[in-house]
């Protein structure tokens, strides 16, 4: 059975490797100091999608991302690893969205894709850690959801069987298609780039990236349909202006504070036997240990 698989992916700042230069002196984030990466758990989701494709020849994997035009980097990366094509949902009016307005926008784009069998995405993105967008898209599309998925065990007869990894154990569930499945970081790692695909697709560009190329390069891309990564805007996905961007977001950021911890008076110890033994004796004497 050939499947129409959609993978939701996000380009995120690498918040896991925040260095000292990540915050500016005025306490705002220095985005330039943070590399933009493929959200890690979305790669786990991509792997599950590619496995479904392997098991069901003729299936198609489409990557959908919402963000700035440069998010086309995520689409290319996914295509190098085996995805068939991708769409960048990008529009100024979509900016400033909270999870609900984001989910609405993405759900509108998914509706345009039509006849999807399964939608996969990472459990959560590392810049927000909310895990809300997957379930909210499922609700917007009126389809069921399976969160915290670790492995898709089987897909047949209009059902998917998924093993979920919960905080207190594992659960195997059977869910009718179409549905949304969000995948945990504990799932199988994504396969690396495929050398042949890298060569074939390295010049793939989004519409706005193409506009910056020379005429000659544009002609090259135009002659090859597979190198074109479409960009969709709010109007194209028929998004209700009341439900997108800042206006469509019920949550508002009231204040943002840089995190400052009160420094304590620390006692500095040398790594020598005498000082370490004295520390242990002190901790025993004040009943912290022992």
């Amino acid at each position: 059975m050939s499947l129409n698989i959609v993978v939701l992916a996000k380009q995120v700042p690498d918040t896991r490797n925040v260095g000292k230069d990540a915050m500016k002196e005025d306490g705002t984030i220095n985005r330039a100091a943070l590399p933009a990466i493929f959200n890690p758990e979305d790669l786990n989701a991509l792997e599950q999608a590619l496995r479904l494709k392997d098991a069901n020849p003729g299936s198609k994997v489409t990557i959908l991302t919402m963000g700035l035009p440069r998010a086309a980097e995520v689409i290319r990366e996914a295509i190098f690893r085996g995805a068939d094509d991708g769409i960048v949902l990008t529009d100024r009016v979509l900016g400033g969205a909270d999870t609900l307005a984001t989910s609405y926008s993405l759900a509108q784009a998914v509706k345009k894709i039509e006849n999807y069998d399964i939608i996969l995405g990472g459990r959560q993105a590392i810049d927000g850690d909310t895990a809300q967008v997957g379930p909210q898209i499922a609700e917007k599309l009126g389809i069921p959801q399976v969160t915290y998925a670790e492995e898709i065990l089987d897909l047949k007869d209009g059902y998917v069987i998924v093993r979920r990894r919960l905080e207190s154990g594992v659960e195997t569930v059977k869910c009718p298609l179409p549905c949304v499945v969000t995948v945990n970081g504990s799932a199988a790692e994504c396969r690396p780039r495929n050398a042949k695909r890298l060569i074939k697709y390295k010049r793939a560009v989004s519409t706005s990236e193409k506009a910056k190329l020379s005429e000659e390069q544009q002609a090259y891309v135009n002659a090859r349909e597979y190198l074109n990564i479409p960009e969709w805007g709010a109007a194209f996905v028929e998004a209700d202006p009341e439900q997108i961007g800042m206006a469509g977001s019920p949550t508002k950021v009231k204040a943002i504070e840089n995190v400052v911890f009160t420094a304590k008076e620390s006692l500095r110890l040398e790594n020598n036997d005498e000082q370490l033994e004295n520390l242990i004796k002190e901790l025993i004497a004040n009943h912290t240990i022992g």
Partner: protein
Amino acid sequence: MSDNNNLIVYCEFEDGRVADVSLELLTKGRQLATRLGVKLEAIVVGDKLDGIENQLFPYGADVVYKVEDARLYPYTSNPHAAVLINLFKEIHPQVCLMGATCIGRDLGPRVSSCLHSGLTADCTSLEIGDHTDPKTGKEYKDLLYQIRPAFGGNIVATIVNPDCRPQMATVREGVMRKEIFDANHKGEVINLDAKKYVADTDYVVEIIDRHIEKSKINIKNSPIIVAGGYGVGSKENFQLLHDLAATLGGEVGASRAAVDAGFTEHDRQIGQTGVTVRPKLYIACGISGQIQHIAGMQDSSIIISINNDPNAPINTIADYVITGNVEDVVPKLIKYYKKNSK
């Protein structure tokens, strides 16, 4: 049921016992409800709920809604979401709190999407306060301030939901403190008919197999924690931390970087995306001290930092700073503990 504008807590349970995180939220919810001058309500959805209200009243619940059906346990998304969505359309709570668990983080978004109400995940603090819209100048009284870390923990954001109800928030286990409000407190029980709230077509997901085991790792309640970061260097070196923890009678914790690097299991992660701990002694080994980690352990009574970087950020909040390699220092601590404890 009428519009009541109350504060409601969705309570989870397993084996007939209400989850700690739900009791922590009732404790917090009690304070907030008193501040707002409204009732504290709890809702339990599942099967075999006999007497479950007796676990909730001491934490200050004024009303306990019970929705019982064999198909509502174990939890699946759509039926539980249907209960909350349909009930909230009747009673219009102003605030709804849930645990930031695999259940709450699955359920909350679905409910908030359907009701178009704002949901803030993983709040670390909840307060009541006023808000003025910076654009329109419109004033709002007594909103729920949903305070949470963002951007990998480097900033803390205060989120409000000015216009949409309920104001929804999830909170991780261990972030709020659980405290009995009044052991003799009694409230009202309202049994709701599951069939009225959940359609047969909502039962779409079937649980084929389920293995729930209480995690053997109990870092939350351990008085001594030996935690390792990326600087520990390897899975093998993490064994040294286990040796020290075993010697001192403690547990091993880890930073997100160490867990991501595969040095140890996810259940040991401490910080905003892991567990919040408040032990008597916290020994941070090779942990640089990203904000997201510090936020989960800064209330420890005594903090020792072992790091070969004398300027590691964690050192600023440590009581004792030992500059040196973990492989070098940890065995010495074990040696001197064994020598001096009798």
